[in-house]
């Protein structure tokens, strides 16, 4: 039975969610999360902490070993997603951009890829085409519309993957390591796009270990530890300034390097810390 949440502003809720990979290896342990409507939310953690697994669960692709998930107060489970009505309701509203764009793109051309979602939603062909061309214009993909996805660059593939989700006009966008493997210009484009989408009312959930992205997005942050638990949640500034926390979850580390003849020891994060200790 559906459980309507008292707080309607929450769009995604996770209650004591755990997941065991192949029934043996712990991937997530006792995760409690509330994500609000229109929020920018970042899930950060070192490699192998369970960020992707968490996003896949939020998208109803895999199901928790224990605990419960809710979308707008409706439970997300294997049973509920078998219901035709709920499946459409949920998939129409929650879009997932995979880390590896290659696995996500399966239509013959870029245009087909963008049309796949709207046509699945039974949107008429004229409107579906309008959506596809508008998204192509926004993402600057018009020149590659007739190309197959394997003939695109990494940045173009990522844009097509995002576009293929956007044409379905979801309310929630789940991004898995969105800046991974992209050049600085495309990364910058992506951040601007995320801001624009958020301003348009979309809820963004980003799984990343790129702390500069978290800083740029100024998102609410949940930090995953190597024990696969939520270590802390808070604002971007609060989390990024907590060096002890970031050290403990292996998102930053201390290293020594040289400036000419002088050796320095400092926290290294591939981000904005460069405070010399000695």
């Amino acid at each position, binding site marked *: 039975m559906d459980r309507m949440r008292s707080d309607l502003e929450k769009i995604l809720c996770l209650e004591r969610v755990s997941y065991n990979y192949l029934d043996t*290896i712990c991937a997530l342990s006792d995760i409690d999360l509330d994500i609000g409507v229109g929020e920018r939310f970042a899930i950060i953690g070192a490699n192998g902490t369970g960020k992707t697994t968490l996003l896949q669960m939020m998208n109803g692709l895999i199901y928790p070993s224990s605990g419960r998930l809710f979308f707008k107060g409706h439970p997300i489970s294997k049973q509920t997603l078998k219901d035709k009505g709920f*499946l*459409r309701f949920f*998939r129409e509203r929650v879009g997932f951009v995979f880390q590896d764009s290659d696995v996500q793109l399966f239509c013959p051309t870029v245009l087909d890829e963008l049309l796949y979602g709207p046509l699945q939603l039974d949107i008429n062909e004229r409107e579906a085409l309008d959506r596809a061309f*508008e998204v192509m*214009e*926004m993402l600057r993909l018009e020149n590659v519309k007739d190309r197959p996805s394997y003939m695109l660059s990494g940045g173009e593939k990522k844009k097509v993957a995002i576009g293929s989700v956007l044409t379905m006009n979801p309310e929630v966008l789940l991004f898995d390591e969105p800046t991974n493997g992209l050049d600085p210009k495309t990364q910058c484009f992506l951040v601007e796009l995320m801001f624009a989408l958020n301003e348009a*009312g979309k809820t963004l959930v980003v799984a990343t270990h790129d702390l500069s992205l978290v800083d740029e997005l100024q998102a609410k942050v949940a930090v995953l530890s190597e024990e696969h638990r939520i270590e802390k949640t808070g604002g971007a500034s609060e989390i990024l300034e907590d060096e002890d926390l970031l050290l403990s979850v292996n998102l930053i580390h201390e290293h020594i390097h040289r400036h000419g003849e002088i050796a320095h020891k400092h926290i290294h994060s591939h981000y904005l810390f460069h405070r010399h200790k000695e």
Partner: protein
Amino acid sequence: MANRIPPFLLNTSSPGSFKKDMGKVKIPFIEKGINYLAGVIKKGYAQSELSFQYGFFQKVDARVKILFLLFLIIIVSMKKDLLSEIYIWIFVFLLSLLSRLNIVAFYKKIFFLGLIFGFLIALPSAFNFITRGEMIISIVKLPRSYTFWVYHLPAEIGITKEGIYGVLMLTMRVINSLSLSFLVLYTTPFPEILRALKVLRVPDTFLIIIALCYKYIFLFAKTVENMYLAKKSRTVREPKNREAREWIIERMAFIFRRTQLRCEEVYGAMIGRGFSDRLKLYGFRKMGIRDWCVGFSLFGMGVLLLWIG
């Protein structure tokens, strides 16, 4: 960027609720099958990675296990009566118990594969138009017998005693061979198997192919699973069988392309790291007294199984 956002993205999706009782979604068998197969490969991989657990067979030297596997598989093929195959099955079952394997999961997989590659493949030979003999179950009676070229279709079609015996023999042989192979695979870390094969003078080219396949098959299973999840995340209605088939064909082409690229990259990386056609392994351990004792005991059991029945 904000001023370039298409107007349709500014509208929220239709109603806040959904129509209930619209029925259940059925996922086409072919799609489910692909995902299931990828899962089985991944699970198999993880189980062999967990072969460091303590148990009887885990402690035995890999060379002893490989020789035991070869010896027993030869015996399985040589036996000509069902009872001997059952004795071998019981022996392997006891070894699996002693090795503390998850017996239910272990035999579930073996019986499933045995059913497909043993029973179902051999089933037609149970009929009297292939294996003649004493009819035990009559299925169809035709008005007369028919003869086409070298084939003869008798008037009464059914299962013969000799035919069903042959089917059961083949099924038991497949099950026993699979049980032995899985027992060795699940109780031996993969590098140890490679070392054992190297010691047993298996050609390096063959070992390199095995090693690369072993690593690649996991990546392959992961890619297949991710592709399935990506499709699932954009599936808003019940997929049609035709769509499922088209998707699978397209994805097969994708995997082929990717495999080809990966193959070239891996080969380039191997050349870059000084690859020659020799496989150099290290860390060969000496056989202990325990290994020799277990080896002779297993050999003795093999001889006993060869002798009885």
